[in-house]
């Protein structure tokens, strides 16, 4: 049955290539260290305070879960971005990209192969953090809904960051430039967009003075920040506004989808747009660097 759907050769090669070198395992170990270190510190610190009541245990579970997720998001912002940014530019640097372009593979297969390979590695990282996440269940305070929504948010942002990396990788010829552009885009998105949101709130507050509109705009711009979205989702679940939030526009209360839903939607749409642009970029005839100028030398 599976033979009817041949595996994307790029995906297969990338996974083999990744898992055959020690870097993949060092990175995995580093990831586990990064997310478990702060978690362990918080747990140890809280353990000293010896929470005994059910409510305190619940708070401890939520705190540990939040720390764990924040650390995971931090790592999963950079890992897929760098890995994806190095993918196509790396092929160019290795002089293998022309060989792919002159094969029968369409641009779509090349892009999705690279994308899925990065996502597969991130899936391994997410799977590796499962035992730590499971610990929070033992402590309590985190339900399955919170866990699933958090995972949805992380996955959506991993897909977005991978798409950003793939896009810049398709645009630039060198890995260094592609990684630089990708990281600049992501750090800009994390820091600049909330900054813009804040400035807009100030400007609109002063000119239009409509709290509801500025609040909604602020709300939407913050949906680009995974840290804010996760905190907001956990809070929304706690106050039992998991799916809908109530906002006031022109004196009327309107129920809108929660921030995490806007965030997921935005991530998926932006990812599709970026992947489409990346496919277009490599589907267009690949132009090499400026050709050699004629010389007087013989052949």
């Amino acid at each position: 049955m599976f033979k009817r759907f041949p595996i994307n050769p790029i995906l297969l090669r990338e996974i083999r290539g990744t898992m055959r070198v020690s870097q993949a395992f060092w990175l995995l170990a580093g990831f586990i260290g990064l997310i478990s270190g702060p978690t362990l510190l918080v747990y140890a610190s809280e353990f000293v305070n010896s929470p005994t009541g059910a409510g305190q245990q619940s708070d401890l579970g939520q705190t540990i879960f939040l720390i764990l997720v924040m650390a995971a998001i931090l790592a999963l912002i950079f890992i897929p971005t760098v890995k994806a940014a190095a993918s196509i530019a790396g092929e160019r640097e290795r002089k293998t990209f022309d060989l792919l372009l002159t094969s029968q593979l369409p641009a779509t297969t090349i892009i999705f192969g690279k994308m899925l390979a990065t996502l597969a590695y991130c899936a391994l990282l997410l799977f590796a953090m499962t035992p730590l996440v499971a610990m929070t269940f033992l402590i309590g305070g985190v339900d399955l809904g919170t866990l699933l929504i958090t995972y949805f948010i992380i996955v959506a942002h991993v897909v977005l960051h991978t798409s950003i990396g793939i896009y810049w990788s398709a645009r630039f010829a060198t890995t260094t430039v592609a990684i630089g552009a990708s990281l600049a885009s992501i750090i800009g998105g994390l820091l600049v967009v909330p900054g813009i949101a804040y400035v807009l709130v100030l400007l609109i507050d002063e000119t239009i003075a409509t709290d509801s509109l500025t609040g909604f705009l602020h709300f939407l711009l913050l949906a680009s920040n995974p840290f804010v979205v996760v905190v907001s989702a956990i809070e929304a679940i706690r106050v039992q506004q998991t799916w809908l939030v109530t906002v006031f526009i022109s004196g009327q209360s309107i129920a809108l989808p929660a921030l995490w839903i806007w965030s997921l939607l935005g991530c998926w749409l932006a990812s599709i747009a970026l992947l489409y642009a990346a496919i277009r970029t490599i589907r267009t005839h690949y132009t090499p660097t400026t050709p050699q100028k004629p010389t007087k030398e013989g052949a």
Partner: protein
Amino acid sequence: MIQFQSLRRCFGDFVALDSISCTIPSGATVGLIGPNGAGKTTAMRILTTLLAPTSGDVLVNGVSVHTNPQEATQRIGFMPDEFGKYEAMSAAEYLDFYARCHYIPEHQRSVLVSEMLDLVDLAHKRDDAVMGLSRGMMQRLSLARSLLHNPDVLVLDEPASGLDPRARIDLRGLLHELHRQGKTILISSHILSDLADICTHLMILERGRLVAFDTLDNLMHRAHQQRIIVKVLHDSPLIETIAHQQGFTCQPHPEHPHCYVLLGNHDEHAHAQLLHALIGAGVSVYDFSREAHSLEHAFLQVTSGTL
């Protein structure tokens, strides 16, 4: 058959290829030569669908590389000048990967990979890491890769670059074998002595223009008729006079004394008459020979405009 149809490619103001038109017959082995910057790589990249022409087109067995690149790539095997390789991959895996990229079915792939490794004499290296192969082995592996989908046309960019003499001889043998199999081969190389041994045709580019396209035999024949070396025991002003009378230009050899270089586009009869006239006039000729020209000489004549 490869048809270049008024092919032109510009990079800004710089014209890399200027109205290249010629038809390479099926089964020909064509040497693409020219000085650095002549447009060889640009022509090859357009032919292999890696670069779009500014105007004109190239047809490979009737399929346009510009408007139908996907179908054209099925007919073309490309071996670039630099060997692109992946880490942690054996020679057999390398070929298997590219066979997958050409959608060769699984049941054919393992047999095909073994056949290709046998063809390029790398069967004993099938499980060795690609990164550890010598340059000659990598070139042969690259040639095997370009043959995986059984293309009609092979485009080889500097295949012998950096190879030791033994590897070059092996590569020449392989190319002869592919020529016998009926492949149309376009080779860019700076090693003209290798091309002279392999090619049936030559395509000479200079500053983006096609300055010659002919069979190797014709080009060499035309070049052979150009230079006659006459060596005499004693210099004589009669040599120059007689040469002019017979329609040749005559110059003393720049390096050897008592030696003259006669230039003229004449046949063997004219050469015989010239020799007869020289001896008849009492010139002490002890050596009269058409210079044993090489492909290098033909190339220099073509690119200097004297052929």
